[in-house]
């Protein structure tokens, strides 16, 4: 089930990126970022009312400070991806983001001491090859389009 969540996360992350980009074209990046957090906060609050507990707040006292930075990092992502997609195609943007994501995730797992079975490592390598094959094909077909027009 958790694998399904990870896959859905792929869909929603691209979809929200495109939504934000479209919205920023209409009302500007700052306004669209603000609206993005307002609607997100409303949704999150409903979710908390339905499933959360007030006692959850007590965990904040022991939390590592890096936990607080999420909102700020998120804003950077919303802001910069809206900015990039307006100027570079979705697929090129995605490819570069993938590279940044992968390098960072290897580093994080390494420091968290997470080990992978040989089969999982093979799977990871296949996914990476697949990503670049896809993007290479996209890159070529789009270059051809651009030259033709």
């Amino acid at each position, binding site marked *: 089930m*958790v694998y399904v969540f*990870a896959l859905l*996360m*792929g869909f*929603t*992350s691209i*979809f*929200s990126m*495109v*939504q934000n980009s*479209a919205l920023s074209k209409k009302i500007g990046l700052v306004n*669209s970022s*603000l609206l993005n957090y*307002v*609607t997100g906060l409303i*949704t*999150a609050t409903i979710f*908390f009312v339905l499933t*959360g507990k007030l006692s959850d*707040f007590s965990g*904040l006292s022991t939390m590592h400070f*890096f*936990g*607080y930075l999420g*909102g700020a*990092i*998120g*804003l*950077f*992502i919303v802001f*910069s991806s809206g*900015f*990039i997609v307006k*100027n*570079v*195609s*979705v697929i090129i943007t*995605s490819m*570069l983001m*993938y590279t*940044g*994501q*992968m*390098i*960072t995730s290897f580093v*994080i797992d390494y420091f968290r001491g997470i080990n*992978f079975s*040989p089969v*999982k490592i093979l*799977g990871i390598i*296949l*996914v*990476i090859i*697949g990503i*670049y*094959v*896809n993007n290479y*094909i*996209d890159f070529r077909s789009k270059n051809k*389009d651009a030259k033709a027009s």
Partner: protein
Amino acid sequence: MVLYLNKEEVIMYKILALFTGSAITLLVLSNAIMSASVGNPLAIVLNHVIGLFCAVILLVSTATKPKSLKNINIVYLLSGVTGFFTVLFANISFMELGATITLMIMMTGQIIASSTIDHFGILGMEKYPFSKYKLLGIFLMLLGVSLIILG
């Protein structure tokens, strides 16, 4: 490709894209740390409160004028709702699977989503028809994900 930007500008956007990718992973890590401390529901609320706070600072510091939301497609207006689900799914996956496997499966989802958006030009994005050669890449990714799940 983009023809109206000069080379330096395009490279700058590409470097920014690389950093944004890195930031996505750091965001997932940050959210997972908070989620481990206070639980998923509260973590997502606080995450959005902090983000909103930053956005307000940005709004004030850039003296941006609010714009009317009339005549804007409701799907665009609800980007934050989609974002909420991204954080929710990310926190659950990261805790159970770690960063690399979460991202590998997420990327497979992203390729499928972005190919679909490119092919149909969904939400006003430019249309790039799906090339059948891409099935090779998608096949490799799905095979990889299968091995990750089974391995």
